């Protein structure tokens, strides 16, 4: 029997876990990362001569749930054509029996790594608004992400912001029947529903009782595993936590406390009770835009001093110009020329 060195052992473990891409048009380049459900590899699309990312289940169909979840994720992604959502190109099953899908290969950094290099608070907030755009679009297509966190946001080499990892995404169509009377936010997110076959599948896969998500970013109702009560406000909770992370910039050398209106926006977004949160991502984003524009935000009631200070901050140049003009006029009146 052949003796295998330690190096050979590692090579064999890697070869054994490497996806079998024979029969596909993809050629393996390298392993990227391992997630809860599968691994991501970089590959070359031989036909189109471009780099792509492959998400592949770790094992050949160890149970149907995982394959179904990966297929579900690929179908959800296929419905979400938006510049802020990673596009999917292909899906299927490899020769070794493992389910996979092919998506755009995003060269860039994860948000938590990228944000450390962005010093300006307005720049960080504008970046966050692009995440909101993508999530708002997904909600408009009846899809909840359910796992929004810094590690699932990529910032590309040209500044593009992409929401990744839709493995826990849930279709909200069943809420239509549950809330046929026309509740507030659900009306927005169930306007455009996917095919009925999707509804059954997603319900079975991420049905009530399963707790899926990331502690710290997961809403209380999601943490309870009560998925039938989830709606857009569950993602808004995660976005609130994400905004707090982005605004506070934990990697920054010096920490400054957040402005009160911004803190209030965060706190409203991740309020314990979902009824106290923003009713839609669009409302949430609008409040943040108002903050960026120096306007009053809906999440925070200002006192007179704060209102005056904000007014001064917003019209600082004009106020200074008028003040200078008035001072000059006064000087001319007080000290007229002979």
């Amino acid at each position, binding site marked *: *029997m052949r003796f295998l060195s330690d190096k050979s052992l590692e*090579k064999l473990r890697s070869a054994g876990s490497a996806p*079998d891409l024979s029969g596909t048009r993809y050629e393996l380049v390298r392993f990227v990362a391992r997630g809860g459900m599968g691994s991501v590899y970089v590959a070359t699309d031989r036909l189109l001569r471009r780099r792509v990312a492959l998400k592949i289940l770790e094992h050949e169909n160890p149970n149907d749930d995982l394959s179904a979840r990966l297929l579900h994720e690929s179908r959800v992604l296929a419905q979400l054509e938006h510049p802020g959502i990673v596009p999917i190109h292909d899906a299927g099953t490899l020769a070794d029996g493992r389910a996979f899908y092919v998506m755009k290969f995003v060269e860039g950094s994860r948000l938590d790594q990228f944000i450390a290099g962005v010093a300006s608070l307005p720049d960080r907030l504008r970046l966050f608004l692009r995440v909101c755009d993508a999530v708002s679009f997904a909600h408009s297509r009846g899809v909840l992400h359910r796992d929004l966190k810094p590690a699932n946001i990529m910032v590309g080499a040209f500044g593009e912001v992409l929401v990744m990892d839709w493995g826990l995404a849930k279709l909200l169509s069943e809420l239509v029947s549950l809330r046929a009377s026309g509740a507030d936010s659900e009306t927005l997110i169930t306007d455009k529903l996917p095919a009925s076959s999707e509804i059954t599948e997603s319900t079975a896969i991420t049905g009530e009782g399963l707790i899926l998500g990331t502690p710290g970013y997961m809403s209380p109702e999601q943490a309870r595993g009560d998925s039938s009560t989830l709606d857009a406000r569950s993602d808004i909770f995660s976005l609130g936590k994400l905004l707090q992370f982005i605004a506070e910039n934990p990697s920054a050398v010096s920490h400054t406390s957040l402005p009160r209106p911004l803190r209030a926006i965060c706190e409203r977004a991740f309020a314990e009770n979902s009824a106290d949160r923003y009713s839609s991502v669009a409302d949430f984003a609008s409040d943040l835009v108002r903050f960026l524009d120096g306007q009053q935000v809906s999440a925070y009631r200002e006192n007179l001093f704060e209102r005056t200070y904000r007014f001064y901050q917003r019209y600082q140049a004009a106020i200074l110009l008028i003040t200078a003009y008035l001072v000059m006029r006064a000087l001319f009146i007080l000290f007229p020329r002979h």
Partner: protein
Amino acid sequence: MAPPEKSAAAGGNFPQTRISVVAAIRGGDPTERSRALDVLCGAYWKPVYKYIRLKFSKSPEEAQDLTQGFFVELLERNLLSRFAAEKSRLRTYVRLCADSFVLNEIKFAGRQKRGGEVVHLALDFSSAEGEFAAQAINPASIPSPVHFEDFFEKEWIRSLFSSAVTDLKELCVARDKPTAFSLFEAYDLSDEGDRSYAQMAAENGISASDVTNQLAWARREFRRLAQERLRAICETDEEYHHESRSLFGGG
């Protein structure tokens, strides 16, 4: 008893129907029991031998005697009957049994000399000793029990993969695919740095896409054969999936 390395090759002697070695050894059928022991010995004797050599600092002769004695005791005292898959993995159980056996042997040194009428396993200790020496392991560099566990696990993987490589070689011969094995050998078994597919294609007079396909086939078969051997020594499907994940990584 036949040498386990040969008898268990290609998963050949052990029935493909799903009966775990533990169940077969516990069972009453002597033929099944003997085959199951072959499979178990084939997977574990080298890790056990090297583990005894390293952890208890035994000489090659002492370690050989203790390894022989351990597997005989495993069979005679039917130690696997106490194994509970829900409580631990088989390899952990085997390692703990080996620990207990060696400590008892040390405590009651000379209590019983094996030989004579006692069953003797035909194990190729010279190859195991050669491997052990080649690895040049310094016991001082493995001070904690956790590291001994890691060592045992690594040797178990080495033993399993070595057997699967042998199986793959036999399969390539049987299927008349010598190029596939030589590509696998050059790319995945070599200690040298990675070679390009184009380079290997030129050396073998085939196209780069042939290299991709043949290598993919060999890897797929290697994985299948390793999993087949793994399945044979796992008590439950859950244990098998867990072990398969730890072998090939991921969740």
